[in-house]
């Protein structure tokens, strides 16, 4: 590995392409051996380990540089070779730039000023702590060829097939049951026919005697009619009540959003705090929908999902398309790494919506009471598509206020009222209801 890298470094890629591919490995080895012997003194300083270089690169450079994509700074694949080919700049220049780019610019270096202006005057952080060895490791890593795309979605595929198998086996069981029941029904019909035929053959009279039809008997029995009527009334009352009670309740409401945002990936897999995006839940009535600059805090760097994020249901292409939707809305040109200024609003569909006559304040519940978001919103970190978990009815609010003990420990908001009320009620623990959480005017005014 080391040797082939050196041959790459000293000979340009053009040379490599001309090499006869059938003997490529051998030739590279031979070539690098010759070069090693010829320039062994000068090369010894340039040896670098791409593996070490990768970790150094990720720790020190990756904040602003990607290998194949412009970011805050330029793409760095084969940077050493490109610089020596195009600008005639050697490793010493690179090392000087890495350790203190401002000094290189100040010295009046033409290329340094050019690159500084090209990237909008973003000064590269000085890295005086990197040794010559570290820099050679990093350059060895950047000199590597583009890796072959790994066959993706191995885990996703397995999961998917597992799910599908489960679905198929369930369906098969149901189908088998249906067939079984059909066979049973047919068998019954056949048995009846056979018995009838036997009866006919034996000369037994099986014709039914004509009595009063059953509905007439029913009508004549007034008690039965009364019972049935009461039963029907009660049953219909039950269903009408059930229907009316769910009017205006949106539990389970799961609208299609303009951008498929997965809470499962963000809050679940990556463990981002709810309040990172919904920051106004801490301080205001509304738990705000984040403006798109909050998305761009991360998605400036994350322009595609990792292959292992894709599931059987949602492919990597699908998720990448959703990130593209974000870029279109916020007006971010990913190739040029700058904002175009052409923005358009994302019309998220509101899910949790209290009627206008009920007052609810997020900050009071989140910051003062310290309630977990999941208490009302359910397991959001497992939701691929967001839905309303709680009924948000008045009974639901009241129940929680009655059952929840207010956490007054180390809570300056409650010190005084807790002292007074616990004396009044003679209890140590106060529920939200005892603190006035059931008063009409607290929520309706």
């Amino acid at each position, binding site marked *: 590995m080391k040797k082939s890298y050196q041959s790459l470094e000293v000979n340009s890629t053009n040379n490599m392409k001309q090499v006869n591919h059938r003997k490529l490995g051998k030739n590279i080895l031979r070539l690098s051996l010759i070069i090693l012997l010829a320039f062994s003194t000068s090369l010894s300083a340039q040896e670098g380990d791409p593996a070490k270089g990768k970790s150094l690169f990720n720790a020190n450079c990756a904040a*602003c540089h990607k290998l194949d994509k412009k970011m805050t700074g330029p793409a760095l694949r084969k940077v050493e070779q490109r610089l020596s080919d195009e600008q005639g700049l050697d490793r010493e220049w690179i090392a000087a730039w890495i350790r203190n780019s401002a000094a290189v610019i100040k010295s009046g270096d033409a290329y340094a000023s050019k690159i500084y202006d090209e990237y909008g005057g973003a000064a590269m952080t000085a890295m*005086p702590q990197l040794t010559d060895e570290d820099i050679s490791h990093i350059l060895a890593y950047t000199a590597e060829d583009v890796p072959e795309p790994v066959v993706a979605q191995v885990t996703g595929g397995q999961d998917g097939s597992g799910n599908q198998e489960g679905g198929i086996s369930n369906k098969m069981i149901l189908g088998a049951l249906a067939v079984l029941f059909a066979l049973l029904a047919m068998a019954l019909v056949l048995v009846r026919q056979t018995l009838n035929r036997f009866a006919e053959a034996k000369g037994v009279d099986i014709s039914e005697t004509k009595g009063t039809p059953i509905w007439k008997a029913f009508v004549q029995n007034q008690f039965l009619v009364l019972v049935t009527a009461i039963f029907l009334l009660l049953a219909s009352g039950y269903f009408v009540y059930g229907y009316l009670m769910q009017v205006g309740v949106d539990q389970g409401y799961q609208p299609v959003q303009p951008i498929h945002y997965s809470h499962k990936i963000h809050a679940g897999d990556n463990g981002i705090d709810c309040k990172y995006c919904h920051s106004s839940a801490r301080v205001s009535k*509304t738990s705000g929908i984040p403006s798109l600059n909050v998305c761009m*805090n991360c998605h400036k760097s994350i322009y595609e999902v*990792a292959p292992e994020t894709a599931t059987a249901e949602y492919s990597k292409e699908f998720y990448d398309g959703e990130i593209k939707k974000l870029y279109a809305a916020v007006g971010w040109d990913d190739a040029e790494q700058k904002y175009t200024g052409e923005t358009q609003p994302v*019309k998220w569909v509101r899910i949790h919506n209290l009627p*206008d006559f009920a007052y609810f304040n997020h900050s009071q519940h989140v910051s003062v009471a310290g309630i977990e978001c999941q208490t009302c919103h359910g397991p959001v970190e497992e939701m691929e598509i967001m*839905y309303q978990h709680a009924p948000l009815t008045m009974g639901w609010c009241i129940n929680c206020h009655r059952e929840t003990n207010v956490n007054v420990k180390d809570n300056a908001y409650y010190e005084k009222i807790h002292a007074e009320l616990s004396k009044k009620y003679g209890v140590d623990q106060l529920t939200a209801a005892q603190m006035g959480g059931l008063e009409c005017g607290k929520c309706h005014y």
Partner: protein
Amino acid sequence: MKGLFKIVVIALVLVVVVSCKKDTKPNYQFMPNMYEPVSYETYMESDAFRSGWEAQLPAEGTVPRGFTPFDIANTTEGYNFAKDSLSSPLDSTKVDLARGKELYDIYCGICHGNKGDGQGTLVKREKILGIPSYDDVGRAITAGSIYHTIYYGKNAMGSYANQLNEEERWQVTAYVLDLKAKLEK
């Protein structure tokens, strides 16, 4: 046979009715004019404004109530100026490291790591790379440079000025300096 037919029809109707309930549409409301607000709600669309929506930016040249303008520019020069000269308005009695930690863990720890060593969850999962540790000698951060970075963002990091207010930003700054001191030990 007729009875069976009727049962099947009723079952079919029931299935159709039940499957009509869609989760992607909101339910009926008893009295919509009591449910829906007369006033402008957060984020609502409204033709009262030229932009077509309710949320508006403050008029140019005005300062919202309770805000203090931040005069240092979002440039490298501004950053260096803040780094050298800007210091926290909070004195030692107002610095609340517990609150600073709480805010830091929500907004910063996800990338910078809860210890400030640049090893947050997103870094460990290789979503975002290259987060420096606070004791990085090349950066040598100060209170002013931390505040400037929170306010405007830097390189790949975005601005946190809309998630943290001025006092909270200084609390986080104090906590970051605390983490830096612990890392340098």
